[in-house]
């Protein structure tokens, strides 16, 4: 029997306007990689930063912990701990000139360019849910990847959609 298609954790479409788009990318592969303090090195991406490596996006999300997002060929020591969380975390992409303003309505962090430049990554409480957020611009336009526990996916997606619909972004 062939493996069935991946079921999206959200059942509603996101906004697709020029100012802001919200897309569910949950089916994209997501591998969490961790190293022990006395173990082999992990990917050469610093904590708090993200960089493309071998076709994937590698994110230093916590000390000695990385996300490897997307299909790619990232050379890693097998002694590192690798857990496939493709099914465990939903992944959304929030893109557009209004993306930062939308985030400002649901999260208290400073999303300005100097503090959260392209290629930066952080954990944050977004709409009261813990997320990992990566600034991953598209063609010079602000774009954020948000990773959240799959069970919160529909809630967070709705919260972001609602934020995108706030009066100042309409």
């Amino acid at each position: 029997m062939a493996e069935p298609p991946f079921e999206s954790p959200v059942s509603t479409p996101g906004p697709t306007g020029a100012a802001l788009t919200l897309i569910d990318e949950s089916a994209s592969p997501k591998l969490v990689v961790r190293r022990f303090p006395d173990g082999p090195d992990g990917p050469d991406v610093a904590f708090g930063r993200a960089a493309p490596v071998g076709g994937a996006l590698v994110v230093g999300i916590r000390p000695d912990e990385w996300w490897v997002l997307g299909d790619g060929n990232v050379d890693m020591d097998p002694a590192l701990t690798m857990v496939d969380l493709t099914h465990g975390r939903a992944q959304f992409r929030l893109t557009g000139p209004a993306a930062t303003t939308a985030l400002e309505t649901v999260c208290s962090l400073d999303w300005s360019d100097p503090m959260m430049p392209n290629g930066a990554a952080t954990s944050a409480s977004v709409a009261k849910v813990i997320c990992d957020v990566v600034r991953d611009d598209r063609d010079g336009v602000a774009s954020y990847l948000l990773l959240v526990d799959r069970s919160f996916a529909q809630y967070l997606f709705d919260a972001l959609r609602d934020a995108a619909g706030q009066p100042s972004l309409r």
Partner: protein
Amino acid sequence: MARPDSNGRRLPSLPTEVINRNEPITFSWDGQPITGYQGDTITSALTAAGVDVMGRSLKYHRPRGLLTADYWDPNTIVQVGDEPNVRAGHRRIEAGMEVGPQNVWPSLRFDVRAVNDRFGPFLRAGFYYRTFMRPQRLWPVYERILAQFAPGGEVDPETPHSHHDKRYAHPDVVVAGGGPAGMAAALTAAQAGAQVMLVEHEPLLGGHLRWGDADDIGIADELEAAVRDAGVEVLSNSTVTGRYEDNWVAIVQRSLPLSGERLIKARAKVLVVAPGLIERPYVFAGNDRPGVVLSGAVRRLVNMYAVKPGSRAVVFSANPEGDATASVLEQAGIEIARLVDGRQGETVAAAHGSGRGIAHRVSGVELGDGTTVDADLLVIAVGWTAPTSLLNMAGDRPVYDPTTARFFPGGPPDNVLATGGISGDGTLDELVDHGRATGRLAAERAGVVAHRLRTLTTRSRPVEDPEPPWPGDHRLPLTRDPHPELFRSSTHGLVDFSEDISSKDLMAAASEGYDSVELVKRFTTATMGPAQGKLETVNTVAVLAEARGESIAEVGTTVWRPPFAPITLGALAGRVFEPTRVSSIQPWHNRHGATAILAGQWIRPDHYGDPQAEVRNVRENVGIIDVTPLGKLDLRGPDVPHLLGLLYTNKWMQLPVGGVRYGMMCAEDGVVLDDGVTGRLTDDHYIMTTTSSGAATVWEWAEMWLQTERPDWHVHVTPVTTAYTSINVAGPRSRQLVERVVDGIDLSPEAFAYMQVRRGTVAGVAQCFMWRIGFTGELSFELHVPAGHGLHVWEALLDAGADLGVQPFGLEAQRIMRLEKGHFIVGQDTDALTTAPSTGMTGLIKTDKNDFAGRPELVWALEPEARAGAPLVVAIQTTDPTIVPPEASQIVRPGTNEILGRITSSRFSPTLGRSVSLGQVQPEVAAPGSVLTIQLIGGDRIPARVMEHHAHVDPEGERLRG
């Protein structure tokens, strides 16, 4: 219906007016239609329509008319529709708006409670404290009566919830105040490269220029255009209501379309305080009579709204603004009956009225020399209050300057700068220059703060350049124009218009010993009303100084606290975030009529219509339940057995690959923290399950031990609760069903025994694991499949098992079955005092292990003397099988009210046809066969019996091991 200009109070068109005469707007006032123009405030429209009395005072219910004609006007707080406490001097009229007075009964014209005015001498400050303190037992009665006199508007409980946004911002500079100095500061800061928010209380930028002449307005327009061109974020009709630690600045924004107030939580690198000055009333007899107004109110009404506030005026002026107001009145065709010059020692002593009640408008003004002048308008221009609130909140203590009769900043912290009228006087150019210098300094300092923040975070690029030096303050100070100290005349009058506190009240309080400014404030409630000191603080201090025979500087001032302006509860609440979690099967549950229940943050199917039938189907056929919320932790590394041995009370070093074991976790005090099973998938890879509500706690618990006590252990813990959709297949036909969807796993009892785990493919989905355990006590297979395929597997099971009678079952059926089986639930059958021995599972407590969390306490808890006083979890059955004792029912000693325990879980068992319960009881009645007395809600007592085993059904466990 009153036309906007029907009674001669609306002036011909003026170049300075902000109203649109092409857009008449009709609204109602106290039930009567009123027409104004677009741009009118409620106050200006009512004044134009000839309405002099717009409310009643708090305590004496004296008729009140406009005083300041702006947001701070204490006399014009009205009800708009179902919205109470609306500032009529600020709120613009809208078509159909229903406006009415507050604090009146039965009507504004005839207010019964105005009788209080007659008894004024008996209602002095402190009246309530003195009168209603004793006897103390009557306070509830007093409270109910006094509540009837509570001021303010009314909120209809049926009012629909309004929508409130919330926003976080991190600007370089927040400028509080959009007058000329504030605009200049914002402009210069933005031109220097700072990200700037300019917050203006009024709908229009410009400050006092907006009620000036055409030249003033031209300058304001020019500055505003430059501000907007420079990229400043302008928040008009918004107020900085508070400044907190680290320049956490609260901004309430009222200008959003389609939304109520919005709270902006801004973390400003530098805050510029430029609120201007607030005009101060004068204390004299009759100073609250309709027709007594401040000079700013006159200029606002005439210049902005083209409304005449009266026809014959006395102007009491002590400054150029008052003189300018006299000119404005003359230009508007209002006769100046007398110009009283406060700089020359002249004064007013009283405002007399023409009649009683509602018609009590000024008709004559008694001057200090005893003469009386006929007039229907008395204009006061005797000085200013510096609204130092935001500076106070930053730790600044303002300093009084007697030469200018107002307070000035004492020395705010480095990241707070003041400019504009609050800092001094001068020409418009001088104010603008000071604003520019302030903006420049703010941008420079914000740059240094930004550098520090970038250096502190790992997210920003590595910061190579050294921190620039902290810019010094080299601004030229503004001059200070001399101003006479004019606070009170020879007569007494109101000091606090909001609270009906007179100068006589303040002096009486001082004579009773309440002579510090903070004490007199609290005793009299002066400065504690809606105006919050904007108009009355300086006069309060001045009257107190007079009573004490000291200077104002010696008396000092009260501390202004947030909020600077009122904020709605809706704005404070903002967007309501209530995160909820769902499994990947929840859409199916919704489509198939499941009744949802909120369990923690999880939305779960409680049942699909008949939980008792669901139980019977599981006991007789096979059922499936979505148990995705079951907490799951992925444990990897060679030291996992050590971690398990540390967290659980039992032993884990010998668990084989493919094995599953139940464990109980205790906190360091021996109290049960959580429980669950853990299975070993490979040599170094385990999956731990926790209770649904305990997943996060157990993860943190494990990380705490690993990071603080055992950092040398090689274990990585990863939460994977929703990486897997978890489905429990339970019932005598469960093996038959699972066999139909599983590939590569021998499900025979010999190959896959109870408490074992296997990995394989389910319904075509690889990377699944399953174990033979179950909460229901039935033969069970718990399938854990990658969540992106969870719904597929759920539907595959239903399709494959139709002929086996497979049906979904919900949480309620599971609760019944686990109770039938005697499985306790941590947090329900245990509590915050339940140590592991109290669960009756002492065999799981291996004190011969070297160490585990809670071991020292548990060693003691297992001693006989400790056991003697600790309750036990036991199974209980009532003598009458039809009675289901409610959970939390008390178990008592017969013939007394002594509590011996309580029912913790209770249901009717469809399997046994009777009620079954778990409970906690004292050891003396915990032995099997002990007879208990259960007290039901309502007081009835019923007999019950302690059972031999926790399990009411299948105590030998034959079903689940089948």
